[in-house]
């Protein structure tokens, strides 16, 4: 026996990226704009979706709900009469802490792509792994909440850099917290200069109109690209 060195030079996540491209071309063909929606657990992703999905005039929304276990979030959204597909990473994917392109691929046949314009893929709550795995999205949006600390952008730069929009949630709690909002916004800008941010409270509804308008503009923008 002898040893041979084999040159490889391949991005280790190439396999995932290839499947993500296949997903994206399926979504593009159906004219569906796709958001990969990410945050830490409990930041308010589902509530922020509940606030807007049934109220986007002319934009039909579908949700792909990723969770390790259970369908609590999917049930909440389904009660708003939007199509929701549940994807659990536990039984078939070994309890993964994120969605990858292959998991989303497995859900594509179940998605009513002809009946929706905007698909929100709600990722598993986690600030680390979801940032590494493209799933076929057009854009990425994340939620950070003011109960999480001002230093999060510096600790999880991959996630903050990957997103086009950062929703800063739970601002109704600011009077009760020792939280420096300017510091958080400064840190976000350090890690991802000029990234768009919207201050919101899913509870009081503050900022929700701006979040809704952002989604409307996105659906129009991507739709225009697809048509052109």
């Amino acid at each position, binding site marked *: *026996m002898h040893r*041979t060195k084999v*040159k490889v*030079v391949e991005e280790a*996540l190439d*396999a995932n990226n290839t499947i993500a491209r296949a997903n994206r071309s399926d979504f593009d063909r159906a004219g569906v704009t796709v958001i990969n929606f990410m945050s830490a657990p409990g930041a308010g992703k589902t509530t922020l979706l509940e606030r807007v999905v049934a109220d986007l005039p002319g934009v039909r929304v579908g949700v792909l709900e990723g969770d390790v276990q259970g369908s609590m979030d999917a049930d909440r959204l389904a009660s708003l009469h939007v199509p929701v597909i549940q994807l659990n990473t536990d039984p078939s994917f070994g309890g993964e802490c994120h969605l990858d392109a292959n998991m989303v691929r497995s859900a594509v046949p179940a998605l009513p792509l002809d009946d929706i314009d905007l698909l929100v893929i709600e990722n598993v709550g986690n600030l680390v792994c979801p940032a590494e795995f493209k799933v076929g999205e057009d854009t990425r949006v994340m939620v950070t909440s003011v109960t999480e600390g001002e230093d999060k952008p*510096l600790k999880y*730069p991959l996630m903050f850099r990957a997103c086009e929009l950062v929703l800063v949630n739970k601002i109704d709690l600011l009077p009760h917290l020792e939280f420096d909002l300017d510091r958080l916004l400064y840190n976000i800008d350090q890690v991802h*200069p000029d990234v768009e941010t919207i201050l919101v409270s899913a509870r009081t509804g503050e900022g929700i109109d701006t979040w809704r308008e952002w989604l409307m503009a996105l659906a129009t923008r991507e739709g225009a690209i697809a048509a052109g």
Partner: protein
Amino acid sequence: MHELSLSSAVVNTVVKHAKGRRVEVVSLRIGRLRQVVPDTLDFYFDFVARDTVCDGARLEYEIIEARLRCKPCAQEWGIEIPAFRCPTCGGSDVEVASGDEFEVESIEVEEAECIAPR
């Protein structure tokens, strides 16, 4: 914690290139911005590699320092903390010159000796 997912990606990539040969060494190029902890990757790799041609293989690391480049003013700088604004012009049109890599650079595999005369 993402090292578990990343180690699976490494094993899948290596298995594809090993073509059934037993793998002894896997050389990786990893950029600082990927926030990979080599010890943690070693730990998960040992586990994920079981029952594959990578079982018992050793990981070697080339860590690539993070460098950024401001597109308008061409300033280039290294970063210790994640600050992505140009220190010279304050601009935000900044690209990563290096430090984003997560590549399998090469592998060392065992070949059976060629018995046929040359």
